[in-house]
């Protein structure tokens, strides 16, 4: 009986302690976010300080958040969905989970290819998918574009993570959009034939594999290299310093980019506050911190990129509307499966 009593008491205590956000007149905004960086939390706190609007956050992967929003339906408390790629925002729009919101600030700050035509979502930051390479082993005159990665001269040299990864998926989506479906299949098969090893690990692991000599060229996001260069771990900094970065396709369409972005939830109970939060995150001074802390590029062109990114050099970005990437995402997964890119 004692145990049962203890069990009941614990259960009661557990049920009563952490409560859901109170549904009183307190101004608040509920965020479902895939981004779980410390800087986000700090900026949310700044937003609360400036506006008095409390920010409630649930973090999980975007895929899971979408399923959660879909399941919760009209009762869904989320006001704002924040993801770290365009593909998931497009899917959220397809699943009818977002609503249009017209904001002058968004329209003026964000270039049209970085937001949805229907005003369903907008980019907040930009990250570029680039090539890291071993300078002493790679002749860059032969490596100018993503397409060059499929050239058999790089057999046994190319490193990348698995095709589960959304950034690899949207890269292939951009190749489908630019080069066509059959070229994209040939590209994926060609790159796969050049793998130095089976796809595995995360972006940092690919850079370390170059330093270790396992391969020569890695497909990585700029901000992971930025984080490695600023790492707590001296050995990791050293590995990142031993590689060089290359922005592909500078002679034609530009380097493939992806975004962190946000959209107002369809059944948002605090729609106005959600919009306020988006506009806050786009403000020049906030963009500076937002992008800096995570080595991303600001979408507000008035804000400057971090010194570290500036050192990597300016580049032309592929202005393919990000909407197209989302639409081609499923097809890109199919192609990866077809050619057997893990």
């Amino acid at each position, binding site marked *: *009986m004692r*145990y*049962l009593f*203890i*069990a*009941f008491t*614990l*259960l009661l*205590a*557990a*049920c009563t*302690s*952490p*409560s*859901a956000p109170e549904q009183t007149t307190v101004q608040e905004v*509920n965020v479902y976010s895939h981004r*779980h*960086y410390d800087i986000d939390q700090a900026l949310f706190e700044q937003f609360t300080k400036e506006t008095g609007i409390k920010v*409630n*956050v*649930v*973090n*999980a*992967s975007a*895929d*899971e958040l*979408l*399923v*959660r929003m879909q*399941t*919760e*339906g009209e*009762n869904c*408390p989320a006001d704002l969905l924040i993801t770290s790629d365009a593909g998931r925002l497009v899917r959220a729009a397809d*699943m009818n989970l977002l609503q249009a919101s017209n904001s002058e600030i968004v329209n003026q700050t964000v270039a049209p290819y970085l937001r949805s035509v229907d005003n369903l979502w907008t980019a907040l930051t930009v990250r570029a998918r680039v090539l890291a390479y071993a300078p002493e082993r790679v002749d860059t005159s032969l490596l100018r574009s993503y397409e060059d990665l499929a050239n058999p001269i790089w057999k046994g040299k190319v490193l990348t993570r698995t095709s*589960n990864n*959304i950034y690899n*998926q949207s890269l292939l989506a951009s190749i489908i959009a630019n080069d066509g479906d059959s070229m994209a299949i040939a590209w994926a098969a060609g790159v796969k034939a050049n793998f130095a090893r089976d*796809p*595995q*690990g*995360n*972006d940092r*692991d690919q850079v370390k*594999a170059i*330093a*270790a000599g396992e391969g020569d060229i890695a497909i990585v996001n700029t901000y992971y290299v930025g984080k490695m260069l600023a*790492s*707590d*771990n001296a*050995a*990791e900094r050293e*590995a990142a310093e031993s590689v060089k970065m290359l922005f592909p396709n500078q002679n034609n369409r530009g380097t493939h980019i992806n975004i962190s972005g946000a959209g107002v939830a369809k059944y948002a109970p605090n729609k106005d506050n959600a919009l306020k939060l988006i506009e806050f995150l786009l403000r020049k001074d906030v963009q500076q911190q937002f992008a800096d802390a995570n080595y991303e590029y600001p979408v507000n062109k008035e804000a400057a990129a971090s010194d570290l990114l500036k050192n990597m050099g300016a580049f032309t970005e592929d202005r393919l509307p990000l909407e197209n990437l989302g639409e081609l995402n*499923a097809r890109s*997964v*199919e192609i990866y*499966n*077809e050619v*057997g890119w*893990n």
Partner: protein
Amino acid sequence: MAGTSTPYSGLGKPGFLRVRRGGWLILATVIAALVLTPLILLFTNLAADGGSFDQLSNTQLPRYAINTLTLVAGVGLSTLFLGTSLALLTSLYRFPGAKFFRIALLLPLAFPAYIAAYVYAGIFEYSGPLHLIGRSFGNNDLYANILGMPGLIAVLSLVLYPYVFATTRVAIESRYTSYLESARSLGLERNALIRKVLLPLLRPAIAGGVFLVMMEVLNDYGAMKYFGIPTFTTGIFTAWFSMGDLGSAVRLAMYLFTIVAILGLVESWYNRRNKVSESHRSRPLEKRQLRGIKAFLATSYAGGIFFVAFLAPVAYLFYLLSMADSSHALAEWPKLAGSSLLCALGGAALVLLVVIITQFVRQLVKSKYGFWIGKSIAVGYTIPGAIIAIGVMLFSRLVDNTFNQGMIVAGSFLALLFAYAVRFAGVAYQPLHAESEKQSGRLFEAGQSVGLSAKNLLVKIFLPLSRKGILLATTLVVIDIFKELPLTLILRPFNFNTLATKAFEYADDEMITRAALPALSVVIVGLIPVLLLHRILRSR
């Protein structure tokens, strides 16, 4: 008169008792139904969706199947070897450190698999500690890429072997010794005794441990993903979450479930075939002292495994911690630890409530139906956490819509606790079921014949007799929830973080040094229930 000697209860009481039992049976049925509804909702929802199966056609399926089976077989065999050999060594022999290793070798249980995956990859990687040490001695080649299948099997085996170690140890130390004594009286020499009598007797315990290990393997997601091994489990995620292809996801879930069901059937068939009754009177098999080279080898083996499975990864986490700026994380720590504890204790309380009532009713009614009610609640243990999360969401929405109250249950802490109950009732089922099996029912029947009410049977007989089982179950569930990731991640309310979710988020953002503090906390706080587990095992 003869008539008066018939017990007066013979006429009135049984009918009365049946009614009371009926109430309890309904209660157990309702509880089981509650626990099972999310799963039923899930499968009906998925099945209704239909969906195409083109996506996963010929290329993916064989690869998923081969990888899944290789992984399960690989980890199963290596934990079988590690767990059994270490249990035999520490329970049957005396050697320097033997006593210490009996506890120490349980400790890796506190390591969540996804943290272990990052940790071992980090130890061996280029620019990892091993490499740096090598370099300072002029050797630049002291690193290895352990990502991939063999590495994953090794990592999972190192964190999961304690399941086999624990179950086997318990079996060696507290049971069967009368068999050994009669065998000995027939003149069998000790080594032959161990080989011919003890090992066969241990089979059910070993099989039970290996079965638990296999379930844990099939439920892992983080480690598989990081190591780049596509299996049925990762396939479900890709199909459902990345491609929105529910049809494929449900098919894959069915395949996974089939594997689990086959393993479960094999285990219970095997254990029925090898069932032995226990005796409590005999003394345990006395330990033999090892000397010289044998003692040295024994200490090296146990010490080596302890070093590789626990000391090295913990040291590596401390090493990472020393590099990171943890001031931010440190300020958050009490809140994170509090949330973790709240989840673990609240979840465990709910799990025990479910399992105690269903097991009590099984004992009370002694029918096939009661047995199956008791067993049915265990099914959630065989289903990956993220899938259960979706089922619980569907269920919460159903409840909310029924009562037309907006979002009350959905997105609440209660929903999260309920999800733990669905997922982990199976963990508590095993020890409680075993305990109530042992009760032989005689006391219970005696209680019934003197007219104890069902409530008194529960309080005065069932609960006290199941004490150890309850304690063991609580400990196991607390350990599991403490390490748990997907359910907590997906179902948690606003502004709610635990040590496990925080560790995962940092690691997922490729900020492993920042992950060190919460990860280390998961392991160190997790040691408390593991040490408790040791005490329980010892006292059995």
